[in-house]
């Protein structure tokens, strides 16, 4: 062991400074809380929250506990992050590829999109969508439907709701389909490595994913019907849509802003990744007789993904953290519900802010663990 007494000095000083600062803070916090008559503790989580939340994925009203309110906020945050990540990835990949196009117009159009959206603060974009753009939508009674089932109004987007019977059977059939796809994929890989034969995995998997749920409909007794939103008159001038699923305008504005903003960064990651694959690789692949599609699938994409994944992970993390801007337009995410309303009601500043921060830390860590696992799978396996 390479231990030196000389090294201890700076470390001890640093640790001492950190301990002193933290000690100072905790001491003050104790004194302040005693003066104001607040006691420290997480007991309030089980008390009755007595405030309502506009939009909730789980059953919730004022009689539920603060912990339940926390869960409502957390689920809303996760919902908007997942939708945002999904849309941003698709849009980002499309724009990133368009950015590489040889077509001058498409190229410039994509470049314009990227330069435009990423140089404007996200909060400003969010306000624009929520307070300016979505406010020009029609009132419920004047709304025109798309295909007769979707209604986009100033009060939100109304879509048909799915009404399932025996949903669990359908779900299990989907799971079974995916498991068999994974199984076939590994088998195909083994066959290719040992015998050089290629099995059309894509067609088989698409077929499986279609057939299994179809069987569940035919044999398993699953049925699906739609509940289409209908206009209902409350008073002479007040209309609402009844039935169906309603997405509040806050959610729409937030998803739009988050995905349009983050897509620009993902597009740049994709572009950098594809450009980062050496020209020689493509030429070598073409010279051994691979078709352009095969070159893209077998040579360029696996290498590009290695460059694309780490920065894209960062963008996913940013999107999740940026979803906290929801508080600015009153979308009931964790910051608004918990660090806003619950904090105002209980006054437990330290507990609530620390729980919120801890939640975001855990979300960030779980996303990066997931993406690191994926990154490790596609990384170069060095011997």
């Amino acid at each position, binding site marked *: 062991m390479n231990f030196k007494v000389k090294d201890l000095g700076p470390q001890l000083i640093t640790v001492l400074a950190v301990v002193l600062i933290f000690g100072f803070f905790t001491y003050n916090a104790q004194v302040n809380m005693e003066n104001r008559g607040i006691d420290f503790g997480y007991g309030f989580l089980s008390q009755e929250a007595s405030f309502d939340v506009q939009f909730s994925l789980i059953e919730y009203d004022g009689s539920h506990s603060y912990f339940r309110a926390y869960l409502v906020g957390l689920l809303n945050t996760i919902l908007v992050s997942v939708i945002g990540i999904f849309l941003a990835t698709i849009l980002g990949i499309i724009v990133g590829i368009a950015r590489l196009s040889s077509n001058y117009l498409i190229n410039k159009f994509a470049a314009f999109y990227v330069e435009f959206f990423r140089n404007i603060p996200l909060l400003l974009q969010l306000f624009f969508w929520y307070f300016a753009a979505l406010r020009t939508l029609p009132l419920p009674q004047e709304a025109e439907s798309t295909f007769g089932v979707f209604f986009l109004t100033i009060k939100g987007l109304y879509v048909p709701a799915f009404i399932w019977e025996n949903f669990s059977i359908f779900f299990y059939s989907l799971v079974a389909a995916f498991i068999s796809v994974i199984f076939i994929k590994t088998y195909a890989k083994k066959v290719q490595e040992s015998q050089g034969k290629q099995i059309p995995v894509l067609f088989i998997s698409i077929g499986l994913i279609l057939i299994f749920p179809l069987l569940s409909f035919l044999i398993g007794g699953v049925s699906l019907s739609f509940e289409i939103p209908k206009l209902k008159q409350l008073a002479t001038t007040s209309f609402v849509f009844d039935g169906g699923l309603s997405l509040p305008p806050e959610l729409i504005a937030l998803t739009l802003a988050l995905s349009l903003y983050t897509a620009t960064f993902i597009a740049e990651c994709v572009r950098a990744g594809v450009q980062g694959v050496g020209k020689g690789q493509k030429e070598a692949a073409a010279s051994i007789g691979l078709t352009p599609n095969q070159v893209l699938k077998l040579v360029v994409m696996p290498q590009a993904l290695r460059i694309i994944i780490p920065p894209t992970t960062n963008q996913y993390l940013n999107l999740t953290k940026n979803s906290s801007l929801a508080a600015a337009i009153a979308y009931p995410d964790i910051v608004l519900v918990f*660090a806003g309303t619950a904090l105002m009601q209980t006054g437990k500043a330290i507990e609530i802010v620390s729980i*919120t921060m801890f939640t*975001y830390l855990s979300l960030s860590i779980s996303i990066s663990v997931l993406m690191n696992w994926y990154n490790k799978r596609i990384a170069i396996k060095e011997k």
Partner: protein
Amino acid sequence: MSKINFLKPDKSNLYNYLYFGSFLFFVSILDVFLNSFFKINLTGFLPNFLSFILPLTFGFIGLHLIRIEYSGIKNLDLLNKHINTNNFNAVLSLLIIFIIIKSIPSAMSWFVIDASFGGDSKDVCTGSGACWTYIKVWMRRFMYGMYPNGEQWRINLSFIALALLGSVGYFATDRFKKYLTLYYVVIYPFIAFLFIFFFISGGPVFFDFSYGIIAAILSIIVGFFIPNKFKFYYFLIVPFLLYILLKYFIFYEEIIELGKLDGLNWVETGAWGGLSLTFIISFFCLIFCFPIGMAFALGRRSGFPLIRYISIGFIEFWRGVPLITVLFMSAVMFPMFLPADFFIDKLVRCIIAISLFEAAYVAEVIRGGLQALPRGQYEAAKSLGMGYWRMHVFVILPQALKLVIPGIANTFLALVKDTPLIFVVGLLEIVGMLNLAKTNPEWLGFAMEGYVFAAIIFWIICYAMSKYSYNLEEKYKTDR
């Protein structure tokens, strides 16, 4: 003349294809153009759907006919190469051209033709276009927030002076060039700080500040007699101790009447706002987050395990939480952590919070640069007998920082774009002021104009910054 095959245009009948193809192409564009600019629908006699799809079909056939490789006509070859390589590209190009033609008239009429510029009340805004009068009337609020109208020359003066002082680097002769780093890192921020507190804030802030000046002067004088070996630690510790000693023990509750500036009213930071506040916050956070980030980047690569773990903890904590919760913390939690009689201004708390937050990102960027340097650089510096600090200041950091210019620029851009978030603690910079103005009962319904205005301003700032960083990157690029 050989047979004409419309499915496979070739070079032998070049001009036939060219004339017919370009005729179709221009007809399609003319149709869309007339339709969008003059509301004339040439194909109106056809059913709705056909009339909609016809220009696209015409243009597509036209582009197909003029797609002739190596035609020998320069412009045609350029056109084919750039927008017309295959059918798919041709359709996309046509769609983009149509979208541009379609969107020009409506955008123009909203921005300029139907917009109202004159007047100073809502009554002039009757057109269907934008109401720029709204921006004109609220301009002072958007720029200066609630800062009193009569005092706004102070902000202007400070910004002009700081801009002039900041441009010193361009005019410095070779003799002074070596002092520029010192100037920009230490002296310029200090002058900027004085400007903000003297001019923009004014009032009694200076009294508190005078202890600092006395402490600094005293410690510099004493510093001449300290042996070189301890000078670094001396200047690290003594001035702060002296300041605390002066403020809380020696002159406790007394006010030193030093350089008291009469005539400037005190403007509390709650009244600051608008674009000038964006600049002030970005400027100070930029200055503070850089050294803090550098320290933690070095700490994370330090050989001392305890320092390394503390740095990792710091960086990962700030990177894992959103800025909005950090600002929440600075607003509701931070006052609990300080002695009851100890008051820190809201703006200062904000600047501290944003600086610490961005410092973590800067630290990661700088660490990337440090890791990219080959080991040989460290070993060469050590073999010359350089110590830790000497090695880093003269060999490692200059190279590492050069490598990470794009990353640093991106972090600073993120910082500027994050400043609107300070609405959480009740400070209103330009976006916050917009939200306030749009709820004013006399000016309801002009949210769009306000956001477009702010978007243009932010876009110009951020785009200029990214272009500048690109230039810097080119300037300092050294081949290795």
